[in-house]
């Protein structure tokens, strides 16, 4: 990017700036809540947490909420009286996207924008478009904030990420002290800055120098790495290896790793039928999709009672295979961004980084080679 396109905005102006955008945008930013940082709608009462590391729940929930009404339906009166139930879809789901505003996602971490770009390949692929995700996604301007201080669990550089990754964002910000350095990435980002030019000044040489220094330090602060080159090829032949026999042992089978993961996208679809008390008929209901997790046994339970992934072993294998083998197969991308949420929040400290390292160095001893 040419130098002249870099801008600065005063840190002290940022909240005012965001407030002014509320007319046009649904503004999301990291906000302190219950002792953690979460992406929430803009609040002028809370300072922007410039020192925040990352949110506990990934911002995927903005475009892909934990539960979402796909449509609702009502029973037809005429059918009800004859004892049968015929449902007609209603025009608008009640909790549809608010007021048709555009979305502004402000201050998201670069790893999480990378996750957006991965989810885009799934929900917005050539073969199939998920309207519910894409409608929100296409309305969003994503402004990321480069990481000055990666966490001990961050391992983005072992994947495709960097503390200043640009993929998935329209604009990237750099915290350089008093000021914020602003760099547009996409056309949408450039237009956004142009249309609001009164808030910005041109960046000076010193600002850029400072940013570069901070980024060099930031790279150095990423302490953990997992060398997973060619992991897809490794996994191609790994479905039956004995590696899986023990790696899952510690797993409790909860959904923390998948629910907090910014790239896990599996969901369940159910109908919630409204029942009138004391009556066997129903007046209508909703079709809802909500997060689901491959770590739950119910995830693959068949109606017959058979479960193709009956134990923790098959479920753990699925989680790793899906991210590091099936997704590279289908989307040419590993669906892990190294944010470390699963590492940090696992109740038994079952560390994905360690699992990957063990996997990469694992060599199957064939039966006939055993001494």
């Amino acid at each position, binding site marked *: 990017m040419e130098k002249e396109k870099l801008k600065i905005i005063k840190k002290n102006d940022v909240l005012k700036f965001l407030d002014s955008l509320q007319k046009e945008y649904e503004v999301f930013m990291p906000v302190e809540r*219950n002792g953690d940082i979460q992406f929430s709608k803009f609040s002028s009462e809370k300072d922007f947490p410039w020192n925040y590391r990352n949110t506990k729940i990934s911002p995927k929930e903005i475009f892909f909420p934990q539960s979402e009404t796909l449509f609702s339906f009502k029973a037809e009166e005429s059918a009800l009286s004859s004892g049968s139930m015929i449902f007609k879809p209603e025009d608008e789901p009640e909790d549809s996207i608010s007021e048709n505003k555009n979305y502004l996602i402000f201050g998201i971490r670069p790893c999480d924008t990378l996750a957006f770009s991965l989810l885009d390949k799934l929900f917005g692929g050539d073969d199939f478009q998920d309207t519910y995700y894409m409608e929100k996604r296409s309305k969003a301007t994503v402004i990321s904030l480069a990481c000055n201080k990666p966490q001990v669990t961050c391992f983005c550089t072992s994947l495709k990420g960097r503390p200043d990754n640009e993929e998935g964002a329209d604009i990237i910000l750099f915290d350089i002290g008093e000021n914020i350095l602003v760099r547009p990435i996409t056309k949408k980002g450039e237009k956004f800055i142009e249309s609001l030019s009164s808030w910005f000044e041109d960046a000076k040489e010193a600002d850029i120098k400072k940013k570069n220094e901070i980024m060099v330090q930031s790279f150095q602060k990423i302490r953990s790495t997992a060398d997973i080159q060619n992991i897809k090829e490794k996994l191609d032949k790994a479905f039956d290896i004995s590696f899986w026999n023990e790696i899952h042992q510690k797993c409790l089978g*909860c959904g923390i790793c998948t629910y*907090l993961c910014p790239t896990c996208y599996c969901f369940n679809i159910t109908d919630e039928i409204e029942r009138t008390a004391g009556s066997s008929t129903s007046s209508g209901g909703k079709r809802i999709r*909500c997060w689901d997790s491959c770590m739950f046994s119910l995830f693959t339970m068949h109606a017959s009672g058979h479960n193709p992934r009956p134990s*923790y072993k098959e479920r753990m294998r699925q989680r790793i295979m899906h991210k590091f083998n099936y997704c590279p197969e289908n989307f040419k991308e590993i669906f892990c961004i190294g944010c470390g949420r699963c590492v940090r929040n696992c*109740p038994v*400290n079952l560390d994905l980084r360690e699992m990957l390292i063990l996997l990469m160095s694992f060599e199957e001893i064939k039966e006939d080679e055993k001494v």
Partner: protein
Amino acid sequence: MIEKIKETVKKLFNEDKIDIFIGYGTGTLPLRTVPCFITSSGDIEKLVWNSYCFNNLAVYLPRFFLPQPQKKDVKLPRIGILAKGCDDRSIVGLIKENQIPRENIYIIGISCNGMIDVGKAQNYVCKMQEVEIISAEEKSGSILLEDEDKRKVELKKEDILADVCECCQYTNPLIYDVLIGEEVKKNKNEQQEAFIKEFEKKPLEERWKYFQEQASKCIRCYACRQACPNCYCKECFAEQTKPKWIGVTDNISDIMFFQIGRIFHQAGRCIDCGACVRACPMGIDLRIFTYKLIKDVKEFFGYEAGISLEEAPPLATFKSDDKQEFITEP
């Protein structure tokens, strides 16, 4: 103590008394350990014992003894397990509920003067995530932390003990095959119940509001359930589809139904190990509700879970003078 543990486990393997041993190994993060499964005496060096051994290991036992209808004459594994007072009482509960056979479990009881709360330690260093702890070293009663800016802080272990450990009345296991460590002094009883008495004094509306607030944080990852040794149901009510008791969304009413259902299923069974609280990624104060049940069961039926293999649990027995005011006048 760790040498004693290793020695005992080694002996068990060498004398062919166990097939698997479950203990604690070194964690990958500061202030953490990881549950460690060992199948031969060669791996004994992986074992550790420190103030971060807070996971309740009893949770892993039932999965070794699931009914396997297709397989006949399956030889059940013999499992050695390191059990603190809390793990031990969970094991007792599982034996009583016929989830694990006593004869297949070799309990190495270990006296414990409490485990730390990682969140408390983090907050001591710095609120929120502003500074990260990169290493921790434990030395007789204190923990030396180093943060990413190379600053060092020495914390007293007693200042960062988990709430459950501060109140623990069973620092010494009661039922075991071998005991390691010297008897540890019990905590004071008054201190134990202060928080719940304060909560009980609040009006009903306020308590309900608190429950709603806490439930609203839930993301339904089921970590509380999965971390709980008592939650071994083959099919949880929350996931049953026929009949469907509860919706699958993160709607507050679904969440509250799940939480109420899970917590109430703990009546007369919960032993206050704190596994659910520790596992919860969203910091829900689950203990205030589980502890209320413990207290009520104790007051109404004179029963405490996990301390005897013989005494009938309150939900499995009936007396004509059983208290029932809690039903008629809640």
